[in-house]
């Protein structure tokens, strides 16, 4: 699965170390050392963006560690195995249609900063 070049370039502004990881008919976007919003601990970690429907969510953002944030989140994915690594994700539904990859990433990261 190829993503539009301009969207990939836009996404790189949020994380310069960007690669593609293909697994099971899905191409994930791997963001190495993604900087997280203020108040998060750790301040950065690796992340995996799945821009397509998965596990009942329109899109999903996975993290290499469980991140603590100002608002407690429901980390309903623990040790999900993707690309031969273990990943974590909290329940956060991004429902806006037709988002670019960068907009999708930002919408997911808002999950740390918004109460709900």
């Amino acid at each position, binding site marked *: 699965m190829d*993503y539009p070049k301009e969207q990939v370039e836009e996404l790189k502004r949020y994380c310069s170390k960007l*690669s593609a*990881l293909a697994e*099971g*008919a899905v191409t994930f976007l*791997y963001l190495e050392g993604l900087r997280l919003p203020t108040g998060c601990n750790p301040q950065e970690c690796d992340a995996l963006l799945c821009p397509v429907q998965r*596990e009942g969510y329109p899109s999903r953002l996975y993290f290499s560690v469980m991140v603590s944030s100002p608002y407690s989140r429901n980390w*309903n994915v623990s040790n999900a195995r993707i690309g*031969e690594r273990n990943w974590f994700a909290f329940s956060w539904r991004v429902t806006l249609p037709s988002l670019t990859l960068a907009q999708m990433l930002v919408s997911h990261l808002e999950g740390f900063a918004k109460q709900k």
Partner: protein
Amino acid sequence: MSRGRYSRQSFLGPNSKEMISRTTVAVVGLGGGGSHVVQQLAHIGFQRYVVYDDDIVEDSNLNRLVGATSLDAIAETPKLHIAKTVIYALQPNAAVRGFACRWQEKPEPLRECQIVFGCVDSYKGRHELEIACRRYLMHYIDIGMDVHGDEPPVIGGQVILSSPGSLCMRCVGFLTDEKLAEEASRYGAGSRPQVIWPNGVLASTAVGLAVDLITGWTRRERGYVYLVYDGNQATLKESFTLRNIKIAACKHFAEDDVGDPVLIDL
């Protein structure tokens, strides 16, 4: 007069004993289903095992955990230990690599197997095992049972074979996004009913599939199998979802998607 331990299974073929002994099998999950599988594999003559389970024996396991005793529940014996004991009692020269952890914590030994038995209790667990088996080219045989409803309760279960290059658990209609999502939303929900006899049916069928994969004794080339167990009717039948399958090739796993994941710079 005894004619040799494997004399009664000579119908499997003249080289079957050697073929079975040279095959490396994994059993992921050594609970109700996995303990049956391990016992049967040991009886048949398998010599090379990779087994995973991070749990201990509890009293509530004793209604179904093959090889476990009351003393094991008191002693909180690791299920891994039970499995190894069963294997070594029948095959003292077996090579058993056992891991008291989730397979995801030590995935490399799994990749040396030719057949992986998934005896786990979640859709997520099955999904991840199947991905690993496709990536590292291993036959995956999945078993599972559940009891749901009441008035009367319904016992259901499945035996699925998912082979590299053939239809996967999504293709045959067993694994769906809805099931994974629903399971994720029930995160942390309590333990489910389990009894020994469905596990026995499913484990035996799974082991039979494995022996056929190795020896080819039935002369049937199976790329996929999806059998549904109805514990109330006491039947094990091909899933009705297979009647409507119009796909010839799996769309969920690309044939190129093998080996260690490679990150492609964008």
